[in-house]
C-alpha cells in the first residue's frame, strides 16, 4: 500500500513537471518575438538583449541593432551594384581571339581582365568607405595590344584609364574638363593602389 501511494505521488510529480515544462516552453514560444518584430525599429528584441548585456558587463555593441534589419544587399549602394554588373558583362571581352579585328590585334587575357576587376572594385569600396560615394560605372573597352580601356564621360569631364596587358607596366590615364580642353588636364601613370587612385575618382565626380 505504501509502495502504491509512493508510486502515485511519483507519477503525479512527473506529470506536473512535464506539464510545467510544456507550459514553460509554450510561454517561451509565445514570448519569442517574430522575425519581423526583432527587426522593428521601435521595439527591438536584440536591442533589449543588448541593453541587458550592456548593464551586465558594461560594454555596448558598436553597431545599432536597427541597422541589421537591412540585408547586406540593401547596404551596397546602387552605383556599386551597377559597377558589378558592368564588370561582369565586360567578361565578353575575353571571347575576342587573336586577329579579332582582321588587323592582327591580340586577344585579351584573363589576367588583364582580373586586374580591371580588382582596380574598379577596390577603388569603389575604398571610395564608399571613406566618402560614402561611388563613381559611375565606366565603359570597359578593348584597348590596343591586349590592354583594356576604362572610359568615363560625365557632363563635365572625360577620363580614359588604360590597363596594360603586361603586369610590369603601370596603368596610365588622361582626363580633362570638356569646357577647358587640355588646359588643366590630368595625365600620367601610377594608379595601381586605391590610395594612389582615390583622387582621380574624386576629380571625375567633382
Amino acid at each position: 500500500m505504501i509502495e502504491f501511494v509512493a508510486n502515485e505521488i511519483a507519477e503525479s510529480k512527473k506529470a506536473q513537471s512535464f506539464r510545467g515544462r510544456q507550459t514553460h516552453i509554450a510561454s517561451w514560444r509565445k514570448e519569442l518575438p517574430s522575425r519581423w518584430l526583432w527587426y522593428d525599429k521601435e521595439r527591438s528584441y536584440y536591442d533589449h538583449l543588448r541593453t541587458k548585456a550592456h548593464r551586465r558587463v558594461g560594454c555596448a555593441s558598436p553597431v545599432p541593432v536597427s541597422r541589421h534589419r537591412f540585408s547586406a544587399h540593401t547596404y551596397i549602394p546602387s552605383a556599386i551594384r551597377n559597377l558589378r554588373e558592368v564588370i561582369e558583362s565586360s567578361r565578353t571581352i575575353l571571347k575576342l581571339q587573336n586577329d579579332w579585328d582582321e588587323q592582327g590585334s591580340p586577344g585579351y587575357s584573363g589576367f588583364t581582365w582580373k586586374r580591371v576587376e580588382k582596380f574598379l572594385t577596390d577603388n569603389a569600396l575604398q571610395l564608399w568607405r571613406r566618402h560614402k560615394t561611388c563613381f559611375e560605372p565606366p565603359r570597359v573597352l578593348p584597348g590596343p595590344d591586349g590592354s583594356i580601356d576604362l572610359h568615363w564621360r560625365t557632363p563635365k569631364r572625360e577620363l580614359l584609364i588604360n590597363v596594360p596587358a603586361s603586369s610590369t607596366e603601370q596603368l596610365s590615364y588622361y582626363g580633362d574638363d570638356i569646357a577647358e580642353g587640355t588646359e588643366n588636364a590630368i595625365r600620367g601613370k601610377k594608379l595601381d593602389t586605391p590610395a594612389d587612385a582615390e583622387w582621380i575618382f574624386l576629380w571625375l565626380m567633382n
Partner: protein
Amino acid sequence: MDFSVADELGVTWERQDIPDIDLLWMRVHRMWLGADGKVFPGAFKNRPSDKDGMSTDWQKYATPEQTRNRAKTPKDNAVIQFVVGAVRKVADQTVVHTPDRATNNRAHTDVYGEKHTEARLQLSRIYTPVISVEP
C-alpha cells in the same frame, strides 16, 4: 601622266607635304565601333608595332571607298576622316605622307607618335564618320 600609267612604268612616288586643310581617311573595323557607331579610343593605334605609325590615306590620292576596299572584308569596315591640321594639334602626333609601292597605295599616310591615352582620347573626339557599316 595618269596614275595607272605611272604605276605600270614603275615611277617612284615622292613624299609630299600635306597641307593642314586636307583630309585623311581611316578604315575602322566594326569590332572597334560601339552600339552608337562611335569609334573606341583603342582603335587609334600604331601598326604593326608601336614604332610604326597609324595608317591613313590622303584625300589627294584616294577616295573613302578605295580606303575601305583595301580591308580584308570591306563590308565590315567603316571609314572616318580627320582634318590634317587637327591631327597635328594632338599631343606628340605628326602626319607624314608615306606612299607604299608594295601595296600600290600612293595615298598612304602615317600618323606617327606614341598613341598614349591622351592622344587616343583626343583622336576619338576629332574624327568625322564618312562611311558607316551596315548593322
